[in-house]
């Protein structure tokens, strides 16, 4: 079980969290202007890298904060990248 560093709560067990997937996926500002291909890419495709990926995590059974971490998909090494929002 991974230990996820929540910026608010500190290191907590993975089962308190929900992984929100890759953080490079950003909702287009104006979806109407997106081509079908670009929209499908946003909806369905992941980069799924072998190595470091920036991910959203949600501390759903804790403080309910959404935050990003860098996780190495090979080693599970995790680097916090967010300070607590003011």
């Amino acid at each position: 079980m991974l230990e996820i560093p929540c910026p608010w709560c500190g290191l907590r067990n993975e089962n308190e969290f929900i992984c929100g997937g890759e953080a490079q996926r950003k909702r287009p500002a104006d979806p109407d202007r997106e081509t079908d291909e670009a929209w499908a890419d946003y909806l369905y495709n992941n980069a799924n890298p072998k190595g470091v990926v920036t991910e959203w995590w949600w501390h759903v059974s804790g403080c309910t904060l959404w935050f990003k971490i860098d996780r190495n998909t090979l080693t599970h090494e995790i680097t916090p990248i967010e300070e607590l929002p003011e």
Partner: protein
Amino acid sequence: MTRLANGGVVNRQRRLNFRFNGQEYQGLEGDTLASALVANDVKVVGRSFKYHRPRGLLTCGPEEPNALVQLLSDGDQPNLRATEIRLTEGLEAKSVNCWPSARFDLGAVNDWLSPIIPAGFYYKTFMARPWDFYSRFIRKAAGLGRLPTERDRGRYERVFHHTDLLVVGAGPAGLRAAQVAAISGADVMLVDMQMSPGGHLLFHSREIEGKAGAEWIAEVTAELKGRRNVTCLQNTTATGYYDHNMVLAVEHEPEAAWLRERLWHIRAKKVVIATGAVERPLVFPGNDRPGVMLTDAVARYVSRFAAVPGQRAVVYTNNSTAYEHLELMLSVGISVEQVVDLRATLGEAERELVQRNSIEVVTNGRIIGVEGRSAVRDVRVAGESGIRSVSCDLVCHSGGWNPLIHLYSHAGGKSVFDQESATFIPGEPVQAVHCVGAANGTFSVAGGLGEAAGIAGSLVEELTGKQLGSYSSRPEVAEIPYGINVIWPEKTLKGKAFVDFQNDVTTADIALAVRENFQSIEHVKRYTTAGMAVDQGKVGNPNVIGLVTKELGEQQGSVGTTTFRPPFMPVSFGVIGGSEQGQLIIPARTTPITRWNIAQGAAMDEAGANFRRPFYFPRAGESMDDAVAREARAARNACGIYDGTPLGTFELQGPDTAELLNRLYTNRFDNLLIGRGRFGLMLREDGRFLDDGVTFRVGPHHYLMSCGTGAAGVVYAHIDRLLQTEWTDLKVYLVNVSAGLATMCVCGPYARDVLGGVETDIDFDESFRFMDFREGRFAGVSVRIARVSYTGELSFEINVARRHALMIWTTLMNAGQNYGITPIGSETSGVLRIEKGFVSPGHEGDNITNPFDAGMAWIVDMEKPDFIGKRSLRRDLDLGGERQHVVGLLPDKHRALVADGSALLPDPGGSGRSGFQGHVTAACFSPTLERTIALALLKDGHHRHGEKVLISGLEQSCLATVTAPVFFDPQGQRMRG
């Protein structure tokens, strides 16, 4: 008698009666089942899996492959190892794999048939017919143990623990690591799977630093117990090493008498693995005969349990460790008839020892056969001077050592083959794991102690910054230097030589697999099933790998090893569940009305979000259909009352709330008037249904959203995520208030009269319009009442703080008495929905249906700049093509039984269409229309009203007319009026 008069840790004053395979025996307190059997001279303890050959004890520890038993006296537990069962008064066990008995087993015919059941037999043979055909015959003969039929009476718990350093294994290396680390003040946890600490020192008398082994253990243990920063657990097996240094350990029979097992989740900053090694068997014909035992096991039975497994022993070895035990054997009266050593020469210490004790050694020797089916009679020894038979009742063998690197391997580490010790040892560690002692391939005690101290010292230095130095020296230990030379048996030998005892894999099977071109060790393993039994090849795997390598003609170590996966030892389901058993696995959520409902005799049913709610309220003599019909008629003709507490309710406040709702819903909410509600549809970004519900505007920047029971969690997550990750500029607070509120729905033509009969400052007259909501006092408490309808009737929903809910409910029941107020269950509510054709996400709104398919274009505002799902809906529209639409179906037979999910086929008498046309999404008998009705998804359904389709049923099919998906009050006059 094979019990010694002195020695061991058994209590000779306390005799324990037990039964094994139906026979009465006596053992002593301190025995395991295995040692008690040895003391009673029981040679056959089980049958092998495939050939049903009689088997005796091979080992003395948890790696035991042969003595698998069903424990009958403690909850009927299958496949336990006799070596691990602590003997108790009245214990009863029997061997698995035997029918009718261990000594006479009918399945043993497989042994004589073995030439026709080689490796891969099952794969090769059972291709001709479906597996089901064969399994009937095979399952009777195979199968390990028997599943218990009774509920497990044992109690379990799980605990979490954090520590700086976890040491696994309390042998000399583990004890030393814990001792050194503890000095620094760091938190240290030491777990060990045996009943008492000491590891192999418990069995082998060695002097450490001039002290007897037992004395050394006692000293170190006392020192550890005296420190507050040290936690020691015995009888505790570390079963798996998981990500981020999480180790799971099962504590058996903890001190709390009511507890059977405790599961520890241990998160450690650093982990030292000092799990030791298990002895490896030698491979020779007949090496599975009862009475053929590992030398280490013999020493353990003798020194720990004072149980002697034989009187005349032949010792067979390829390494030096067997010599360590010779004097122990002689001292308890075992006559060592001969030592057969595969090596050409002995080490100096070994030679000196055998000379001192006048023991005959055959160097360059082989055992080429073992006689005696249920107990060893003699062995045939081939040496430089020819072949000779040696009479004996015990064969002790040692093929070297297998470091227990399982945990290291779970952590992600790869093993490497060490040529000198001819075994797999840990390579580069992954995660913060460090192996020491025999687990690291360091087979000398002195070396292991030095290594443990050095590693523990540097780890705590890293953790605490404190310098420790004094312990890292290599202490004095009297021992024979380890030396091994692996020599494999000639292929020409007759008789089965086993490499995996539990799964009956022989040298011939391995050779066959390689001949059939299996080259990867992982493939050979699966083809032959070597290492795949309950013991997971703890003793046998290295022999399998070694033989495959040899057959392939490769250099030893070059084919790699199979991967160890958790658990290290089988883990009971009970301890995984912990205290979460029965109803506590997923505790049902209740509402303030639940007890009242149950007292009324409601049939309860699973609802979404772990709620259990009334399904229907049967009266005496009523069937379910009767009850549902009565409840539905009450709602349509008089008054129904429904507990809607499980619905989700969210408060949204902030200046951008209207904007947020506009983006979440397909329709607009910025133009909603204060005091009014509006039905909203929420989609996912792919344009498919997420949820629907009514949202009210309480103030300019204050809205109240309601959503379905099952969807409440998902909707909350959806909105919260958008607010925190995508629309961080929107100023909105979202609070889930569902748990604090109770919701009750009063519906039907008399709803207004019922509510008007309660003391209140709210007017329920005509001015209280559909989709209005009002706040005020009702029966003396504050409420919010909304006029919304999920039934199609005039209907009011009352929101009240939970603590008042039951009072309001009973007040309403009293007030409604003269109006025929009737509690209705979820089944009735479903019937009322289908009659009205209200589309339900999850039924009609599946992962394909969009709102246009559902006939809900009226609620989708494609002119809005953006909303979640809009872009995907536009693609649906651009793409066009034939889609499935929501329709109603009226079966020709008025009382047709139609199952949800029934396929729709073309009317055989017309239409010209062919193939699958859609499916029924919801069907019921409508008490209002007195006929069966259904909602369905049908190809191009909007354009097929009036056509006939065939509803295909399992037992009978029936024709039905396609209609608009609304069967009752199509204009909605009843709920709006």
